[in-house]
Structure formats: C-alpha cells, structure tokens
C-alpha cells in the first residue's frame, strides 16, 4: 500500500532552462517525504542511466548544467524506501539556447519607448523647433565660479570622481571639465585636476589641452596641472584635501562618481572658502554635496549639463525626450498606485524585470 502511494506521488518534469545560453535543463520533482535516499538519474538515447546527484526531501528542483544542446536526455528520480526501491517515469528534454530573454520584454519596451521619444525630439530639434529648457542654477554658476577664482588670483580645481573612464558619470564630468577649462583659459586662469585613475588622467589632459587651444590660449596650458594621484579611495581624498589646503583654489568642481570621500572633499573645500559646485548621480552622496557645496547638480541635471551648456539643439532635443519619459513614468506610478490600492497589481507585475 505504501509503495503504491510513493509511486503515485513520485513525478519528475524536465524542461529546457528558459532565457539561457543553452547547455542547461531544469528538473522539477515531487515525492513523498518518507524515503531513505533519493537520486536523480540521467541517460542519453540508447545508453544506460547514470547517477547525477543525490536529493533530499526538501529539494524540489535541480538544474543540470552539463548537457549538450540538441541531444535528447531522459531523467528519472529513484527513491530508496524502507521497503523497496522505486523509480519515476522517465522525462525527456532537449536543451537549446534562446534568441531572446523573455523576462526582459518589459525592459525592451521601456527602452524602445524612451529612446523613441528622445529620437523624436532630436528630430524635432533638427527641424528648428524652439525647445524650452528650465534654468539650472548650478550650471549657470560655472562661469561665475571660474570668474571669482580668477579675481582672487587662485586656481580652479576640478575632481572627476574616483571611478574609471568606463563609468558614465566620469564621462559626464569630463564634458563639464571642457567647459570649465575653456572658461579658465579665457580668463587666463589655471585649472588643477588630480585624478584617481590613469585613463581619466589621459582623457582629461587631452580635454583640457583642447579647451585651451579652443580659447586661443595654448601658451598657458600646463599639462602638469592634470595629474595622477592614487587609485586608493582615501589616499586620493587625502591628496585632494592637501591640495585644497595648500593651493587654496578659488573654485572647486566635483563632478563624477563619488563614495564616502564626498563629504571629506566637500567639507575641506568649504573650509578653504572656495565656491563649490558638485554634480553626481550617486543618491547616497547627494545630501553631503547639498549641505557642503554652493550648488549641486542632482542626478539627471548632471547628465543634462553638457546639453544645457552647449545649447546644441540636438542635445536639447534629447533632454526634452527624457522629460517626456519622466512624464510617462509618473503616469505609470499614479495609475499603478491607484490600481494597487484596489488590489490590482497588474502594472507592478508587468514592470518586473528578471
């Protein structure tokens, strides 16, 4: 009677692991709890079953990553009970790689929608349509900060974060650097830029050099002013603090990716009396910059800086598209919240990305 019960409740199902690069199948099984030992067996067409892995009553699935694509495999679960050894019916499966990750369909739709909006507004801007962009105080203050440093006869200091050139925030920082360096060159001022990564140093040297050439002042460009300090986070913070205290820059720009060193830098800069403008997309560091700096570019404002400063219609068009994307998300949040209040979680379920 017990054996019959075990056999009837013993089952195994095998299917190709979804959304993978192939070479993997997933097994799901169910069995009654009273058994001494359990094993998953596997065989290929025309071959004998071989033991793959031992299972315990708490196991409900197992992923076999040792299969070949296109080969048919049979799986069965074998249990040893106090009375007998029982085996499930074999389940067959063929593994294959997928061309599309179905768990990321929503992400693809959102990306296409946002990119579509951005491209649409870029096209509109190309057609000569006037686009309104709100004033960003932190960006308006760049010229004022460089001017003030010049009046004081002090250098301008620029820190592009502590991450490497593969970080988008570092690239955004370097685009702002160009504007700052050009202004500094026009005012015949010097720009000091310690970096914590060698690749950032080379990119920044090139950017500052170009900016000085653009301003018609290549003669006052000093390549030694863009220099490498250290990769070490707090070593870099200590080095920058030392430069701030010794050189007393009139303006300090902190634009890039920052971590725990953000407040150390911003407070030291504040204590030297420099006008400080910061920009980052690190939400955890924003409160520190807001507190210690005169102006802070918060997240999206930081990425919008180059478009805002260049006034290039194509770039401004992309900002407009971004704003419409924000409106789309706002609508989704409102509708989703109202529906969730009445117990419908459809929006939340749709937006889950694997």
């Amino acid at each position: 009677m017990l054996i019959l019960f075990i056999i009837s409740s013993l089952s195994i199902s095998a299917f190709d692991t979804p959304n993978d690069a192939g070479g993997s199948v997933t097994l799901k099984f169910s069995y009654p709890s009273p058994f001494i030992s359990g094993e998953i067996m596997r065989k290929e067409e025309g071959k004998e079953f071989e033991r793959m892995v031992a299972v315990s009553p708490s196991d409900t699935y197992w992923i076999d990553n040792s299969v070949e694509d296109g080969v048919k495999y049979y799986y069965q679960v074998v249990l040893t009970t106090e009375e007998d050894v029982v085996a499930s019916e074999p389940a067959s499966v063929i593994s294959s790689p997928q061309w599309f990750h179905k768990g990321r369909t929503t992400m693809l739709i959102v990306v296409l929608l946002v990119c579509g909006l951005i491209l649409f507004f870029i096209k509109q801007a190309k057609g000569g349509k006037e686009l309104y962009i709100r004033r960003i105080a932190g960006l308006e203050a760049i010229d004022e900060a460089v001017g003030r440093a010049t009046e004081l006869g002090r250098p301008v200091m620029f820190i592009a974060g502590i991450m490497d050139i593969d970080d988008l925030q570092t690239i955004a920082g370097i685009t702002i650097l160009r504007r700052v360096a050009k202004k500094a060159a026009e005012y015949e001022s010097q720009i000091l830029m310690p970096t914590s990564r060698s690749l950032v140093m080379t990119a920044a040297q090139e950017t500052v050099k170009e900016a000085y050439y653009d301003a018609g002042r290549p003669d006052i460009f000093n390549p030694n002013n863009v220099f490498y300090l250290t990769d070490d986070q707090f070593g870099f913070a200590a080095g920058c603090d030392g430069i701030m205290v010794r050189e007393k820059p009139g303006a300090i720009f902190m634009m890039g990716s920052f971590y725990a060193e953000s407040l150390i830098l911003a407070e030291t800069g504040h204590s030297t009396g420099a006008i400080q403008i910061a920009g980052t997309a690190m939400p955890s560091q924003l409160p520190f910059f807001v507190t210690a700096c005169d102006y802070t570019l918060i997240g999206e404002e930081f990425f919008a800086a180059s478009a805002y400063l260049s006034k290039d219609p194509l770039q401004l068009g992309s900002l407009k598209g971004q704003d419409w994307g924000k409106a789309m998300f706002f609508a989704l949040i409102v509708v989703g919240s109202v529906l969730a209040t009445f117990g419908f979680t459809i929006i939340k379920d749709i937006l889950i990305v694997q």
Partner: protein
Amino acid sequence: MKRQVPLIITFIVGVVMVIQYFIPRQPFAGLFDTFNRWFLVIAVFALLLGLLNLLRLHVNKVKKIDKGWGYSVVLLSGLVATIFTGAKWGIGTGTPFNYIFVNIQQPMGATMFALLAFFIASASFRAFRARNIDATLLLVAAIIVMLGRVPIGNILWNKLPLIADWIMTYPNTAGQRAIMIGIALGTVSYSLRVILGIERTYLGGE
C-alpha cells in the same frame, strides 16, 4: 578621421552592449564580461602611465626645489620603498611590504575615513539650522530619525523608533526613488547621445 573612427567604435560597441542584454545565447552571452576584462587589461597598462606621470612630476619638483618639495620626497620614498620591498621579499604575511601595508597604509586610510564623523557633525550643524520652514522640517525629521535609531530614543518615547522607521520607509524612499528615476532616464538619454555621436565633448570635440 581622427574623430570618425572613435565615434564608429563607440556606436558599434554601444549597440552591441544594448543587444547583448536581451540575447542570452552565443556570441552575445558573456560579451559584457569579455569587454570588462579587456577594459581591465587596458587599465592595468594605463596604470603605468599614471605611475610615470607621478614620478616625473615629483622628481621635477624635488630637482627644482619647488614649493612643497618635501611632500614629494615623502611620496617618492614611500613609492620606492613599497615597490622595492614588494619585489624583493614578496607581499605575503610577515613580509616588509605587508608590514608597511598593515602599519602605515591601512591606518592612514582608516584615519581619513574616521574624519568623516567630524565632517558629518560640522555639515549637520550647518544643514540643520532652522532658517526657514524647509530647514525646520529637515531639522525635526533629522532629530526624530537620529533619536529613533539609538536606545535612548526608545527610552524617551517608545513610538520614536516607529516614527523614524516610517520617515525612512515612506517619505525618504519616495524622494530617493524620484531621484533614481531621474538618474535612470538621464543615463539612458546621455548614453544615447554618446552612442549616436551627438555628445562628443569627451573626445575633444564640441
């Protein structure tokens, strides 16, 4: 041509990186990791550039006895000592290199990190001055959260930890998420500008 080639490379790599996120099979699977490994290799070689820049700058400073040349001597001595001990005796436990790392490098890093406590105090003092309604709201919220996170808050009033948790879970999370959504859209927009070559300032062009 100097500008076109990097722009074409950026476009191709950018598009491939977007596509690989949605296609799990080969040759796209693992492409992200492969590109990251390539970047690491390039970054390691670039480290040499940084080292040479550091050496050149500080050797010149010492040679010319420029302002602050003493700091350069300390830096160069540390650099030479670390490289020499590491190359001669290795970097394992008990080696001079490890001694330098554990007894000089680590305490100096920890000291810088510890400075944060004092900087947070001075920054908070400025931020929490009740100059207007917004600053007053910030001050009240901060006091509740700070008291709610320490045992004395619970002794003063047992509802304080609950209110602190509510502030952190709802208004604070809502604000953070608003910023996060803006950052995500900004990232998409900026990436698109870079991929399409509209944003090329980082290459040295306008």
